[in-house]
C-alpha cells in the first residue's frame, strides 16, 4: 500500500536563544522516529535542505523585535496550516521584553558604540500579538516531553495534553516539600503554569516563573505572602519581570510594585 504523504514540519526562529528549537534535537530517543513520521521541510539549525511551503505544522521560536520580523511572521502564518509557538519568547516576548519597560534608545546606547547601525522596535512582543496562534507551548525552555506530546497530538489530530494548573500541583504529585512553608523560600509556584515538573523546588529552590502565569493566577495574594517573607517592592517587581515579564498577569503584578 502506498504510504500517505508525510506532514511537513517547519521550524522558525525569531529573537531567542535557540534553546527551544534545540529541545527538538535534544529528543535523542525520539528524533529519528519523529523524522520518520514527519517530513522536516524547514529546520535550518539541523539541515541545509529546505522544501517550499505550505507547511502542515510550523513551530515558531522567538519574539518579534524588528519591523522585518513583524512582516515575516505574517508570511509564515499564510504558509502554515497549524502554527504552534514554542517557549516563553514566542508565547510572551521573552527576557528581551524587559525593553518594554524601558527606553530602547537608551538600551541601544549602552550596548553599541554606533547606535545608528541598529534597527529595532521599541518592544519585544509575542507571536500571538501579530497572528493567530493555534497552540502555545510554555516554558523557558520548553520541556522536550511536552514538545513530543504536541507533535504527536498534531499527528493524531487531537488537542495536546498540557495541564494549565500551577506548579504547586506538580510539587504535590512529586511529593516535594513546600519550600515556602518548609523553609520560607519565596516561590512563584502558586501562580506559575505547570510543565517543568516542579524542578526548582526539587532542588531546594523557589520557582522563578519560567513557564509564565497559569490560568487565572491570584498574584496579589501571592505577593502579600512574599512580602511577609521579607521581599520589598523592588524585589517583587524583579521576581515577576524575568522571562515572562510581558505576560499579562506578571506584567500587571510587576507594575503594582513599580514605584
Amino acid at each position: 500500500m502506498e504510504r500517505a504523504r508525510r506532514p511537513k514540519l517547519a521550524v522558525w526562529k525569531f529573537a531567542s536563544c535557540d534553546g527551544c528549537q534545540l529541545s527538538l534535537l535534544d529528543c535523542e530517543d525520539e528524533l529519528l522516529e519523529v523524522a520518520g513520521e514527519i517530513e522536516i521541510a524547514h529546520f535550518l539549525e539541523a539541515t541545509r535542505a529546505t522544501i517550499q511551503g505550505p507547511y502542515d505544522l510550523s513551530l515558531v521560536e522567538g519574539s518579534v523585535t524588528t519591523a522585518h520580523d513583524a512582516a515575516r511572521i505574517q508570511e509564515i502564518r499564510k504558509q502554515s496550516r497549524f502554527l504552534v509557538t514554542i517557549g516563553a519568547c514566542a508565547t510572551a516576548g521573552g527576557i528581551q521584553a524587559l525593553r518594554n519597560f524601558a527606553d530602547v534608545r537608551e538600551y541601544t546606547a549602552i550596548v553599541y558604540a554606533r547606535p545608528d547601525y541598529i534597527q529595532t522596535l521599541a518592544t519585544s512582543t509575542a507571536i500571538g500579538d501579530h497572528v493567530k496562534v493555534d497552540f502555545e507551548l510554555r516554558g523557558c525552555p520548553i520541556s522536550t516531553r511536552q514538545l513530543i506530546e504536541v507533535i504527536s497530538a498534531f499527528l493524531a489530530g487531537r488537542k495536546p495534553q498540557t495541564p494549565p494548573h500551577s506548579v504547586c500541583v506538580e510539587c504535590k504529585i512529586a511529593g516535594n516539600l513546600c519550600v515556602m512553608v518548609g523553609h520560607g523560600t519565596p516561590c512563584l509556584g502558586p501562580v506559575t503554569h505547570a510543565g517543568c515538573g516542579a524542578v526548582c523546588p526539587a532542588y531546594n529552590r523557589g520557582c522563578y516563573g519560567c513557564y509564565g502565569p497559569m490560568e487565572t493566577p491570584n498574584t496579589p495574594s501571592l505577593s502579600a505572602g512574599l512580602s511577609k517573607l521579607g521581599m520589598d517592592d523592588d524585589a517583587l517587581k524583579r521576581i515577576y519581570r524575568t522571562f515572562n515579564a510581558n505576560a499579562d498577569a506578571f506584567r500587571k503584578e510587576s507594575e503594582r510594585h513599580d514605584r
Partner: protein
Amino acid sequence: MTVKTIKVDQLARVEGEGALKVIARDGVVQSAELNIFEPPRFFEAFLRDRMYTEAPDITARICGICPVAYQMSAVHAMENALGVAVDGPLRELRRLIYCGEWIESHTLHIYMLHAPDFLGYEGAIEMARDHADIVRRGLDLKRAGNSIIALLGGREIHPINVRVGGFYRAPRRRELQPLAEELKRARDWALATVRWTAGFDFPDMERDYEFVALRGDGEYPFSQGRIASSRGLDISAAEYDEHFEETHVEHSTALHAHIKTRGPYLTGPLARYALNAASLSPLAREAAREAGLGSACANPFRSIIVRAVEVLYACDEALRIIADYEEPERSAVDLDARAATGYAATEAPRGMLYHRYQLTADGKIADARIVPPTSQNQPSIEEDLKTFATAWLDLPDDALRHRCEQTIRNHDPCISCATHFLRLEIDRGG
C-alpha cells in the same frame, strides 16, 4: 574584470541566523563577510539594576546551546567581585557540569552540524538514512552529556541549580553512580568518534592563528586559569580589557574583538588544545596522537577531531570527578554584597567567554560587559574565508558556496550568543 560574488542568505547548521558574502575580482578574493542579522536583545542593558544573584539565570538565556558557560562565567565574575573562592567538592561539581556541556554541545556539532559536510549530506537526519548506527551513537553520546547537566543542573537547557557561591542542592554520592555507568559507555563512543572523524578527508589548509585560551595549572581548563596565547600573552581575566578591544563595524552586526596592537585571534578547541594538550588525560592524549594531531593543529577543518578529543577528555574527567567525589557539608558558601568589580573568563565549548560586572554596595549590577566567543572569532573566520576561498574560485558555484559554509561551520559559531552585541544587518538586499 570578472567579478564573482558568492552569497548564502541563510546559513544552515549553525546556531542562530547568519549569512555570508564573498566578493572576488579577477580571481582574487577582495572581501569576505560573515553577516549576522539576529536582532539585538540588549542583555547588558537590562542586567543593570538586577541583583548579582540573578546574573546566572538571566545570562543563561543568551544561549540555549551553552547556558552552563554563561552561568559559570557569571558566578566566577561575581565571586571575584565579592572576594570569595569556591573550592573543594563544589569546584569539582562545577567542572563536572561543564564536562556535561562540552560533551553535549561538541557532540551536537560533530554529528549533527559538521560531519554531514565531510560525508556529503545536507544534515544528520539525511545522513541517518545511510549511517543509522553512527547517528544513533552520536545521539547516545550527546545524551550522556545531557544526563550530567540534567542531574546536576535540574534540566538540560537553562539549568536551575547553579548559584553564585555554589549550588542550591549538592548531589549525594549514590545519585552520581548511574551517571558513571552511562559515562563509561560514552567514553567508548567518544573514542570511536575520534577514530571516525580522523578518517575524514580534509582539505590541506592551515592558517597562522594566534591562539587564545585559558591555561590551567596542570589541568585542562574549564573555568580557571590565566588567559594565554600562542604568542606569549599571559594575563589574568581582570587584565582582559587592557589587552583586547572590540570595534563596531558596519558590514556585520557583531562587535569584532582584536588583541590590541596585533589583530585577530582564535579561541575554541584548536586554541585550548594548542595551549593545554599536555594536560589532557592519558587516554585523550593517546587518541589525539593516534589521530595524528601533533602538539597543535592549525587546520580548522580538522577541528572536528579536536572536538572529539575534548569529548573523550570530558568523559574521562567526569568519571574521575564522580569517583573522587566527597559530598560537601554545604551546597554554597556565604556571600556578602560589596561595591566592587569582578572579572571572569571561562571556556565555553566554542571558545572563551568573558564577563565583567560592576556591583554597588547593596549587590546591584551597575554595569555589565559580556564578550562571547563568536564575536572574538568572527574576524578570524572572515580571514579564513579570505585566505581559503581564493584557492577555490575555480570550483562551480555550488561547490564553492558549500566550501565557504563549511569554513564557517569549522568554528561552530554561535550566532545567538553573539547576537546581543551584534548589529542588526541593515542591508537585507530587498
